[in-house]
């Protein structure tokens, strides 16, 4: 069996809002093997970005644990954390906001190297130029500032910066959703190339299923803080089992398609006021009595295909 890079163990994150708990992530567990890419899809408010921040150890969990290369990201000592952090990097949706506007492109990419005391000034520069080449940013931008670049180019810089410390895992949070389609395709192809070349593992968060399919080996579907389905990309798309995944797939606009009479109504409920039982039951057309009372747990019903639904 392949080595496991990431273990997420029943992790929960509740935020206090007034006297209530906002259950952003409510018990998520999965393992990710090395060199694989996991896509996480879900609508706004499903908790996918909070999950990413938990995996990075940026926020403490309310419950549960996240292990990176076997070590808990929440329980490590400061110096251990320093080394662990090198193994996982993140790329965000808005590249302009995630780059330092007062630093040149070169300095932006160099920053993680400097913080980790890697190389001398000279060797760092050659590393940076090399990274710029890998992500397709011409060398003459070395002394330019982020605002002089287009959105697609800025995202390439953010990717170069994430690669600087040679991490094993990169988390992408909606990396292409602010980009035009022709640029989006360029970035997606770049991500596939880099993954192959450098043997990386990815967690790829997006709301666009077609984009997720393009880069992921596995897909996890999130709804109101829980995983409702988890499977190999092909299995999930060809044989979606959870009613929510099925409607999600039907809702994706298709070129030349018809507007179907979608059976789903309403929107994702507020995580401050989650429904009892299965979080999807108010919108589900296969609802049974048990669904309103008992929360289904994620279980494997076929090899590598898990769902959380009382129907199975």
């Amino acid at each position, binding site marked *: 069996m392949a080595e496991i890079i990431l273990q997420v163990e029943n992790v929960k994150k509740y935020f206090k809002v007034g006297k209530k708990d906002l259950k952003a992530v409510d018990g998520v567990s999965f393992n990710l093997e090395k060199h694989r890419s996991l896509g996480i899809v879900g609508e706004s408010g499903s908790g996918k970005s909070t999950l990413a921040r938990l995996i990075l150890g940026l926020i403490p969990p309310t419950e549960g644990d996240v292990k990176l290369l076997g070590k808990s990201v929440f329980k490590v000592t400061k110096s251990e954390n320093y080394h662990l952090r090198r193994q996982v990097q993140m790329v965000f949706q808005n590249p302009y906001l995630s780059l330092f506007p007062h630093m040149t492109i070169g300095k932006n990419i160099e920053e993680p190297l400097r913080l980790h005391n890697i190389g001398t000034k000279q060797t760092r520069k050659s590393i940076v130029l090399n990274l710029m080449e890998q992500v397709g940013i011409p060398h003459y931008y070395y002394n330019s500032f982020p605002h002089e670049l287009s959105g*697609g180019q800025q995202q390439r810089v953010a990717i170069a910066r994430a690669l600087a410390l040679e991490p094993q895992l990169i988390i992408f949070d909606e990396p292409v959703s602010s980009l035009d389609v*022709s*640029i989006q395709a360029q970035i*997606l192809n770049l991500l596939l190339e880099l993954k192959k070349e450098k043997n990386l593992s990815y967690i790829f968060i997006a709301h666009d299923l077609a984009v997720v399919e393009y880069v992921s080996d596995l897909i996890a579907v999130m709804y109101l803080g829980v995983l409702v389905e988890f499977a190999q990309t092909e299995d999930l798309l060809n044989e979606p089992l959870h009613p929510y995944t099925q409607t999600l797939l039907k809702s*994706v606009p298709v*070129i*030349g*398609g018809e*507007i179907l009479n979608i059976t789903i109504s309403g*929107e994702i409920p507020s995580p401050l006021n989650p429904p009892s039982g299965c979080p999807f039951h108010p919108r589900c057309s296969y609802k049974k009595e048990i669904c309103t009372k008992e929360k289904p747990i994620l279980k494997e019903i076929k090899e590598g295909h898990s769902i959380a639904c009382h129907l199975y």
Partner: protein
Amino acid sequence: MEYLLEIKNLKTHFNTKEGIVKAVNGISYGLKKGETVSIVGESGSGKSVSVLSIMRLLPPYAKINGEIIFKGENLLTYDDKKMRKIRGNNISMIFQDPMSSLNPTIKIGQQIMEPLLWHHKVSKNEARHKTIQILTEVGIPSAKERFHQYPFEFSGGMRQRVMIAMALISEPDLLIADEPTTSLDVTVQAQILQLIRKIQEKRGTSVILITHNLAVATMVSDYIIVMYGGRIVEKATTEEFLKKPLHPYTLGLLNSIPILKSKKSLNTIPGQPPNLRELEEVGCPFAKRCGKKMSRCEEENPPRIELSDTHIVYCWLYE
């Protein structure tokens, strides 16, 4: 049939300190009653500015030239006072972000009936009655109670329904929707698209839909216009567009969209969209990124090639 709206050689330029931004560079199209046309293109293609020019919702330093014939009259000859009688009355518009287009301090019901009262169409009582009716029509449950609520009490999809209600209450001839579903989740997007089409069929409203999503465009419209660098590069019925897309940019766009379960690898269009300040007056705006560029592409404007009455492409390849 007569055109409801006919755009002739529309040019919109902005005079800025750094030079002239040529956002729209001579576009022409017509729209009949009850038809839906989608204008697709990437950021900077001029798609939004072209419709804001129709509504004249642009800053004073914008120079609009050409003709915008609406119901037989050129809107560009109208002064501000006359234009105000058109907006929200004959032509309505909905925007991408419903939260920033609604007034957060005014109750939903008040905001929806504003166009009716402003244009002195009905009495206050009647307006209230009509508002509740239309709220129900756009799928907002318990409309009577919702009438007295504020925008923050509505979810994103519900707010967009409110915007649609507001746009339609004065029964306009033309509805302009600028990326109406872009900020919504897919399941909600499907609901809103369904709603727009249902209402259009019922009322016979003409619709201009601005979108970057080609799939959405093909699903809801009769015609598709593809814009690039402020010009129309291709115009066709949706059927023709699906069967035989021709312009290299259209083809590039179609090949760079990931399609669910297709397993195709994405071909990319090299380079970046053009800088609208540096656009050349002559030549095809797409030439720099085009794989099929010929020498004349940068020297002469591309010809207008009519493949059928409805399918037009601006490209030397098809001469």
